C-alpha cells in the first residue's frame, strides 16, 4: 500500500472499477483538496486520508471510499436536494455526475452507479440525510465485487470518514486542463429558489404548516426526480404537485428519535466545528445538569425513588451525625446538649515559672493531660479553660499560694457568664472514659449520685449534722433541703479527707460567697502552720464550722470523679472506695501526690495507654483481639496492626 503523509509520497495507483479502468492520481487529488490545514508533521490529515485511504492494498475499497467522499462533498453543497437514488430503488440508468474537480484525469466522467446498490437499506435516507448513516451504510453495504476488503479496513476508513465533520470546503479550485463547467445545480442553500428563502429542514417540512410545496419560478429538480415524478404522476403530475407523507414503516418514523439518542463520538475540536458550539440541537451535553437529573428522575420508578431516598437519608444521617459540625452545635447549645454549661478548668504549669525549670517528663505530662482534656471537651462541647498555676509573686506576697484556684474560678465565672458548672481539674488527672458525658455521668441525675450526709464516708470525723439550737431545721438537717437544686459544690473525699483535685462548683450567689470567704487572712495567720494542704484544709475548716456551707455541699463517691492509682492512699492496701478499677471503667484518674516520690510520667503514660486500650473501636478490637490472635495461632508470630 502507499502511505501518504503530507503528500510526501504519493504513488499513482490504478484501480479497476467495474468495467472501467481509471488511474487515480493521489497527488492531483491532494491538489484539489488544497485547503486542508496542516497541523503538525506527523499527523495524517484526515482530509487527505479520506481521499487517500484507498491504499489498503485491496482494490475496490478505494473507489468506494472515493465515491463516498464524492457523495459527501456533494451532500455538503446540496444536501437539501434529493439524491436521486435515495429512498427509492435506483433506476438502472441513473447517472451520477461528479462535481467538478473530482473527475479522474480531468475528464468528466459519468459512471454507471448501478453497482453501488444500496438496496432497501437506504430507505431511511429520504427522511434523514445524516451523512454518518449514509456513509456507514454506503461503505458497509457496498456489494461491489471489489468490496472484499476486510471489514476492519472498511471500518477504519469508515471511522476516518465518520469522524470527519461536515465541512463546507468552499469553492474548489478548478483543475487546470479540465473544462470549467459550472455545476448546473444551484449553490443556493434554499430549496425553494425565489421562495421564502432560508434553510429548509427536510424533517420539519411536515410541521411547516404548509401542506404542499410552494412552486414558484423554476423548481430545481433532478433529472431522476423529474423522471420519478413523471412516472408517478403520469405526465400531468408536474401540474399538480402532490404531497405524500413519508412514513415508510417503523424506522422511517422513528429513525430520528433512535439515532439522536445514540451516543456520539464527535469530540473533534476542529476549527470548523466551532461554528456549532453549544448549538447542536440533539446534543445530550447541552442539557443543563438540573434538567438532566430531572430527566433521570422522571424516568425512574416510584420504588426506585423511595429506595434512593432511603439511601440518601442514611448517607445524610451518617454525615450529619458523624462528620458535620451539627453534632457539636447540638451538644454545645445550652438548651439541647447543654455543653456550654460546663467549663473545665485545668491547672497547668504547676510550680512553673521562674522557680522551676520543667524537664522533658514534666512537659510530657502536661502535653498528655492537656490533650486528654481537649479531646474530651471537643467531643462533648464543653469549655476548657487552661490556667497557669506557676508560682506568682503576688500570691507569695499575700501568703496565699495554691489559693489561686479560687481566683481562677472567679475569673472563669466572669468569663463564661452562661456556664453553670465549673469543674476544676489538677494537671495530674486523666479522663479514662471520654465517652462519658458529664451530664449522663453525673448531672442528669445528681440527686441519685451524690451523698450529702458526710457520715456515709467520714475520714475526718466531722460531727454531722449541726445540733445547735439556734440553727434552723435546714441547717440541722444532715442533707440540707434534700433537693439536687441546692447543691452548689460537689467534691469527693479520699482516705484523708476532702480532695480538691477534681471538684465542681455551680454558678450561684452561694458560690460567690464561698470563693470570697475561702481565703481569709485571719484564718491563714492562725492555721498556716497546720494546714499542709492549704485551700483544701481551709475548705474542710469552713465545712466543719459553718452551717451555710454544709447546706449546699454534696459529695460524690470518689471513684466517680477522682479515682486514685494504687500508689496514692496506699497505707491500707487497695480500697474499692478509692482506687481505680478498669473493670468498672472509672471515669477519671487523679495521680494525686505523684510528685512526692512516685513516677508521675510513668503513671500518666500507663493510664493513657490503658484508656486507649479500653476505648478501642470495634474495628481495632477485631484486628487486635481476633485477627492478631489467629495469625499468632497460625504462624506463631505476634502481629501488630
Amino acid at each position: 500500500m502507499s502511505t501518504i503523509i503530507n503528500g510526501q509520497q504519493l504513488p499513482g495507483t490504478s484501480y479497476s472499477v467495474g468495467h472501467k479502468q481509471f488511474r487515480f492520481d493521489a497527488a492531483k487529488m491532494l491538489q484539489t483538496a488544497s485547503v486542508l490545514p496542516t497541523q503538525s508533521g506527523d499527523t495524517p490529515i484526515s482530509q487527505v486520508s479520506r481521499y487517500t485511504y484507498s491504499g489498503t492494498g485491496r482494490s475496490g475499497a478505494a473507489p468506494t471510499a472515493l465515491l463516498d467522499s464524492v457523495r459527501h462533498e456533494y451532500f455538503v453543497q446540496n444536501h437539501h436536494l434529493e439524491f436521486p437514488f435515495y429512498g427509492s430503488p435506483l433506476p438502472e440508468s441513473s447517472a451520477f455526475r461528479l462535481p467538478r474537480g473530482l473527475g479522474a484525469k480531468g475528464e468528466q466522467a459519468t459512471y454507471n452507479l448501478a453497482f453501488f446498490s444500496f438496496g432497501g437499506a437506504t430507505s431511511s435516507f429520504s427522511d434523514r440525510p445524516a451523512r454518518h448513516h449514509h456513509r456507514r451504510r454506503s461503505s458497509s453495504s457496498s456489494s461491489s465485487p471489489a468490496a472484499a476488503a476486510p471489514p476492519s479496513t472498511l471500518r477504519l476508513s469508515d471511522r476516518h470518514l465518520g469522524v470527519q465533520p461536515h465541512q463546507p470546503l468552499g469553492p474548489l479550485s478548478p483543475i487546470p486542463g479540465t473544462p470549467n463547467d459550472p455545476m448546473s445545480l444551484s449553490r443556493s442553500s434554499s430549496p425553494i429558489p425565489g421562495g421564502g428563502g432560508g434553510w429548509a429542514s427536510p424533517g420539519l417540512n411536515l410541521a411547516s404548516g404548509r401542506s404542499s410545496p410552494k412552486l414558484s419560478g423554476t423548481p430545481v429538480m433532478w433529472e431522476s426526480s423529474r423522471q420519478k415524478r413523471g412516472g408517478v404522476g403520469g405526465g400531468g403530475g408536474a401540474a399538480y404537485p402532490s404531497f405524500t407523507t413519508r412514513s415508510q414503516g417503523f424506522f422511517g418514523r422513528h429513525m430520528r428519535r433512535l439515532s439522536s439518542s445514540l451516543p456520539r463520538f464527535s469530540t473533534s475540536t476542529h476549527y470548523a466545528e466551532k461554528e456549532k458550539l453549544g448549538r447542536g440541537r440533539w446534543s445530550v451535553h447541552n442539557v443543563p445538569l438540573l434538567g438532566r437529573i430531572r430527566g433521570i428522575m422522571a424516568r425512574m420508578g416510584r420504588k426506585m425513588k423511595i429506595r434512593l431516598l432511603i439511601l440518601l437519608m442514611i448517607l445524610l444521617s451518617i454525615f450529619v451525625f458523624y462528620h458535620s459540625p451539627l453534632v457539636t452545635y447540638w451538644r454545645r447549645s445550652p438548651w439541647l446538649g447543654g455543653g456550654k454549661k460546663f467549663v473545665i478548668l485545668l491547672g497547668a504549669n504547676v510550680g512553673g515559672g521562674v522557680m522551676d525549670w520543667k524537664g522533658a517528663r514534666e512537659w510530657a505530662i502536661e502535653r498528655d493531660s492537656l490533650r486528654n482534656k481537649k479531646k474530651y471537651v471537643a467531643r462533648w462541647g464543653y469549655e476548657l479553660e487552661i490556667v497557669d498555676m506557676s508560682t506568682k509573686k503576688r500570691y507569695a506576697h499575700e501568703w496565699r499560694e495554691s489559693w489561686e484556684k479560687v481566683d481562677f474560678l472567679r475569673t472563669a465565672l466572669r468569663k463564661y457568664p452562661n456556664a453553670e458548672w465549673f469543674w476544676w481539674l489538677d494537671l495530674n488527672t486523666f479522663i479514662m472514659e471520654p465517652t462519658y458525658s458529664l451530664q449522663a455521668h453525673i448531672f442528669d441525675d445528681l440527686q441519685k449520685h451524690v451523698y450529702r450526709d458526710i457520715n456515709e464516708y467520714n475520714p475526718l470525723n466531722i460531727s454531722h449534722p449541726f445540733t445547735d439550737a439556734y440553727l434552723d431545721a435546714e441547717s440541722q438537717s444532715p442533707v440540707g433541703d434534700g433537693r439536687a437544686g441546692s447543691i452548689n459544690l460537689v467534691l469527693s473525699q479520699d482516705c484523708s479527707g476532702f480532695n480538691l483535685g477534681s471538684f465542681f462548683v455551680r454558678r450561684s450567689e452561694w458560690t460567690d460567697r464561698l470563693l470570697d470567704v475561702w481565703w481569709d487572712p485571719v484564718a491563714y495567720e492562725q492555721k498556716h502552720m497546720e494546714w499542709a494542704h492549704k485551700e483544701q484544709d481551709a475548705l474542710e475548716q469552713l465545712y466543719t464550722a459553718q452551717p451555710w456551707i454544709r447546706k449546699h455541699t454534696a459529695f460524690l463517691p470518689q471513684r466517680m470523679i477522682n479515682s486514685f492509682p494504687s500508689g496514692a492512699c496506699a497505707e491500707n492496701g487497695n480500697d474499692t472506695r478509692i482506687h481505680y478499677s478498669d473493670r468498672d471503667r472509672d471515669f477519671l484518674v487523679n495521680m494525686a501526690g505523684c510528685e512526692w516520690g512516685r513516677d508521675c510520667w510513668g503513671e500518666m503514660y500507663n493510664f493513657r495507654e490503658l484508656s486507649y486500650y479500653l476505648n478501642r473501636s470495634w474495628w481495632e478490637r477485631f484486628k487486635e483481639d481476633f485477627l492478631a490472635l489467629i495469625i499468632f495461632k497460625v504462624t506463631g508470630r505476634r502481629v501488630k496492626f
Partner: protein
Amino acid sequence: MHFALPPRKTSQPPPYLPRASRPPGLRRTRFKLIALAGLALFALIFLVKLSTSGRNAAPTSRAPRGNPPVVLVTVLDEARYSKTYLETVNENRIKYAEKHGYKTLFARVGDYELNGSPGSWTTVVAARDALTKYPDCRYVWYLDASSFVMNPALKVEEHVMQPSRLDELMKKDLPVVPPDSIIKTFSHLKGQDVDLVLTQDKEALSAGSFIVRNGEWARFFLETWFAPIYRSYNFEKVEAHALEHIVQWHPTILSRMAVIDQRIINAYNKGVRGEEYKDGDFVVRFPDCAAAGVQACEIESQSFVQAWRRAFASS
C-alpha cells in the same frame, strides 16, 4: 397604547420549560402539616427540657412574709448591767415592739454555747437565733442593752429600711472604718439590694445597732461573722473588730451593706465619740457606760428613761 416591551428572549433557550408553579410535593395542605409537625417537635423538645431542667434548678429562696415585720434582739448581759436597768431596757423594747406589732428576742450571755470565746459574741448568735425563731420576719434589729428607743412613732421598715429611704440615707464611697480605710462602701449600691444597715461613729464601725434583712445572705453573714476562726483570734474589740475585718476583706459582705447616718438608729448621748442625740431621734445609746461599771448605765440614762416613758405614754 403602549405596552411594556416583551421580555428579551435568551439566545440559548433552555431545553425544558421553566416551572410556573410550586413543586407539586409542597401543596398547601402538606405545608400546613409540615409546619404542625415541626411545631409539635419543638414543643416536645421544650417540654422534655423543661422537665429535666426543673429537677436540678436552683431553688428560689422563699421570701419572708413579714410576720412579724421586725424582731428586736437585745442581749442582756447581767454581768455588765444592773438588774433594774435591764428591766427598764426590757420594758422599753417590749413597749415599742407591741406598739408596731414587732417581736422581741432577749438573750442572756450563756444561752448559747460559745466554746470559750468572749460573751459578747452572744450578739451575733442571738441575731442568728432570731432568724431561726422568726423565719418569716422581714428584719432583725439588733440593739444592744446600753440603748433606748426614744421615738415610738417611728417604724423600722419606714424610717430606715424602705429602699427609697435607704437610697437617701446610705453613705456611698465612705471609708468603711474611719477615718481612712482604703476599703470604701460601694458607690453604686441600690436601696433594694441592701441587706445590712449599720452606722459608724467617729472611731469605728458600730456593732451596737444594726439591722439585717432576713434571707440567705443574712444567714451567711451572721454565720461567717460567728466563725470560730474569728472567735479564736483575740480581736481587741471582739465581735466589733471581727465585723470590721470581714467587711473589709470580703466584698460579698461589703456589697450588701449600707452605712447610714448615726442619728438614724444610733445617736449617742454625748457628742464626744459620735453624733449627739437630739429630741425626736429614734434611738439613744450610751457607748461607754457598760465599760464604766455596772451602775454607770443606769445613772447615765436616767433623763432619757424619763423622756422615752413620756413619749411612749403620750403616743
